[in-house]
């Protein structure tokens, strides 16, 4: 029943997409300046149906309709209702449906909120976006249909992987999807812009908010994934340079570059083609990431759909998309000679873009390099954190310096204000760095540079904030994001350098000494929960330095459906540091393996990222209130 409703809704949506394209083409030549009301109506209808379709799947999950393969494979009747619902997008098919919904909704809102822009440009955007929608619907319907049925109907489902049953992970996919699927709309707009010749400042204005929205959500999406990895994967790290994480980071770099180049396009009408390239690149990278992850050619933690047949379909789609956009770009490309002053704002924004491209290429290379060596050389290698750290960190220092100086520059002019003040700020940063070294009693050159450059960025952005307030200009978006970025790098640097970690085996009642800490294994108990049993340990951590005590309770969880063991870290977060403990059982022994970690400034990493994206949202609100 639900299956046939769902499948037919998907099919009708394809027809609606085609109808929109046909109507739009017809509407182009009717000589009027307004878009036909009919098109709006069909778009509303299209949105309604796809949302109903989504809720059909959600209800199949809620009511545990195991006649659907997707539900059977990813749900279980005893699962808490919250995870039944979030299970809808915790799998390949459901998440692709979410993907299509975002394509559709963005398509409609872009049409709705760009009434000031020419009809031809809007119609073309709508057509391109609907081609994307139809493409993904076809893919959904024929190779990943979430409404496929299984016969005979199983009595019970296989259950959702327990490590995915987690609040951070429940909101992670939607956030991330709004980010990188949202980038489809400026892909379409960029193509429309090339086709219609609608360029320059006005084009920048039409997509600005969409870029900001997708960028902010992308940032939050990456954050939730990272938080989840921190407390769920059990070794205290928050970024693994896993191919999937990289796949989410690649479009982020492109978007960040795009946000900045759009400012130049808007203010100075420069870099038009470069901006177009970035628009195209962002969505292409999003689809490439999806291809890499879903086809299974890269191994990673997101292994829910290793199906080469699906991979082939995405690859064909990707190829068509890339070739079409590249050929169109070649056809329309006109080389421009820019006359930039070397110390003008334009130049610095261009420098930002170079850095972003550098990071993008580095991460892209690291991610796909193993695929290339395997195909060309038949050797299996893996590219890990050492590569990324050694390439990215030194360049990051330079980047932070430019990021501090850049905003001080003026448009067009070749001059700097306040060079002296900047020198003072830099000296301040260096002094604080020495204080940090003094207090933590450890240092290395690279981390000192990271700390100095991030402090330089934070203080010079703070100085900007004060100037903004003095000028009664309350547009804080940029400074918030920049300061937060400085804090992010600073906290990561401190965290990376001053974390303590100890691995040991303990029996119940035993005590382990580590630096100034005494870790005592106090008790162990077994508890029953709704969908799992848990062995909960209690550890007393006493610090002889300040006579403080705290208790941590790591767990080993035994899930029944599917039967899996998971190790839950116990974390005490504080403003200055996190204490982190995990425990795992050792076969045929009374000993437990304990991992104890002290991680300074952990919480500031999360807070910084939230503020980075907040900057993006603020700018959107500001723009919206200006325009309407």
């Amino acid at each position, binding site marked *: 029943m639900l299956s046939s409703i769902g499948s037919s809704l998907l099919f009708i949506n394809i027809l609606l997409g085609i109808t929109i394209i046909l109507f739009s083409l017809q509407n182009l030549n009717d000589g009027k300046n307004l878009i036909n009301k009919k098109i709006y109506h069909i778009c509303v209808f299209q949105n309604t149906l796809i949302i109903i379709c989504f809720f059909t799947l959600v209800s199949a999950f809620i009511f545990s309709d195991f006649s659907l393969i997707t539900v059977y494979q990813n749900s279980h009747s005893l699962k808490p209702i919250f995870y039944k619902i979030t299970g809808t997008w915790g799998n390949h098919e459901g998440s692709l449906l979410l993907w299509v919904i975002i394509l559709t909704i963005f398509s409609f809102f872009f049409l709705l909120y760009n009434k000031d822009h020419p009809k031809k440009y809007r119609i073309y955007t709508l057509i391109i976006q609907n081609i994307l929608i139809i493409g993904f619907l076809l893919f959904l319907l024929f190779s990943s249909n979430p409404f496929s049925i299984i016969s005979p109907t199983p009595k019970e489902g296989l259950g959702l992987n327990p490590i995915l049953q987690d609040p951070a992970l429940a909101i992670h996919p939607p956030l991330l999807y709004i980010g990188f699927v949202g980038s489809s709309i400026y892909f379409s707009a960029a193509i429309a812009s090339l086709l219609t010749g609608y360029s320059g400042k006005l084009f920048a204005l039409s997509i600005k908010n969409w870029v900001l929205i997708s960028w902010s959500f992308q940032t939050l999406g990456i954050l939730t994934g990272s938080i989840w990895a921190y407390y769920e994967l059990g070794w205290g790290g928050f970024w693994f340079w896993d191919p999937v994480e990289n796949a989410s980071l690649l479009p982020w770099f492109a978007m960040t570059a795009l946000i900045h180049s759009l400012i130049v396009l808007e203010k100075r009408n420069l870099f038009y083609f470069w901006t177009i390239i970035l628009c195209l690149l962002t969505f292409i990278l999003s689809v490439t990431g999806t291809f890499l992850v879903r086809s*299974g050619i890269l191994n990673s933690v997101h292994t829910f759909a290793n199906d080469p047949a699906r991979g082939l379909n995405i690859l064909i789609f*990707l190829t068509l998309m890339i070739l079409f956009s590249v050929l169109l770009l070649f056809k329309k490309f006109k080389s421009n000679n820019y006359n930039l002053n070397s110390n003008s704002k334009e130049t610095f924004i261009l420098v930002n873009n170079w850095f972003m491209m550098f990071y993008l290429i580095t991460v892209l290379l690291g991610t796909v390099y193993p695929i290339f060596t395997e195909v060309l050389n038949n050797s299996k290698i893996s590219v890990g954190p050492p590569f990324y750290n050694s390439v990215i960190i030194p360049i990051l220092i330079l980047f932070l310096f430019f990021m501090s100086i850049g905003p001080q520059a003026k448009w067009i002019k070749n001059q700097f204000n306040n060079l002296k003040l900047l020198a003072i700020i830099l000296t301040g940063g260096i002094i604080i760095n020495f204080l940090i070294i003094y207090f933590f009693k450890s240092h290395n050159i690279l981390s000192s540079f990271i700390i100095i450059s991030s402090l330089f960025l934070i203080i010079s952005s703070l100085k900007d904030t004060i100037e903004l307030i003095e000028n009664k200009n309350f547009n804080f978006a940029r400074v918030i994001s920049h300061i937060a970025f400085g804090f992010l790098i600073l906290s990561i640097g401190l965290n990376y350098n001053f974390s303590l970690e100890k691995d040991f085996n303990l029996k119940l009642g035993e005590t382990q000494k580590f630096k100034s800490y005494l870790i005592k294994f106090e008790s162990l108990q077994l508890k029953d929960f709704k969908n799992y049993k848990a062995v909960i340990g209690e550890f007393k951590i006493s610090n002889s330095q300040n006579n403080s005590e705290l208790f941590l309770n790591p767990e080993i969880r035994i899930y029944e459906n599917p039967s899996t063991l998971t190790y839950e870290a116990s974390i005490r977060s504080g403003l200055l540091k996190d204490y982190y403990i995990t425990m795992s059982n050792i076969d045929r022994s009374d000993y437990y393996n304990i991992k104890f970690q002290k991680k300074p400034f952990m919480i500031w990493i999360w807070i910084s990222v939230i503020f980075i994206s907040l900057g993006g949202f603020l700018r959107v609100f500001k723009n919206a209130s200006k325009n309407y």
Partner: protein
Amino acid sequence: MQVKIIKLLIVSIIIFIIGVFFISLDKNTSYDTKGLEGQILKNIKLEHFKENKFITEKYLKKNDFTLINFWASWCGPCRLEHPFLLKLKNEKNLKLIGVNFKDKKNSAINFLNDHGDPYHELAKDEFGKYSINFGIYGIPESILVNKNLVIIKKFIGPISENDYIYIKETIKK
């Protein structure tokens, strides 16, 4: 002219990348079996089922051929291949090692009592950890190894009549 070369270059890079992606799609499906055959097994360490010892390379080197069979009592298809394994037990040049995969000890013993025990040595892999080194991703699977620890053939799924004949002929040579 210069512009044309750049354009051509960009398009060829894109086609190259997509080509590599395309090939790797194909590679992945057949990777597990084809990659293993012809390779030499290294660092073998299998926990013995009953005794407190490990089965290592030394044991494999003593035999002309060894068939390592991954099985479990809960696995339906394992029952299908069982008669062939029992027949293979009597071959002169061949020893059989069973690896009891993610199983309960009692169920495994009952299974062998009911259906017969084809194995010269029996190992266990309670958590499926050791089997990873053999490229096992589902059971039953079996690996035929010669004296020099070269993997001659990997059988995915139950051993069939044809596989049985293949093994018999291989070990006669």
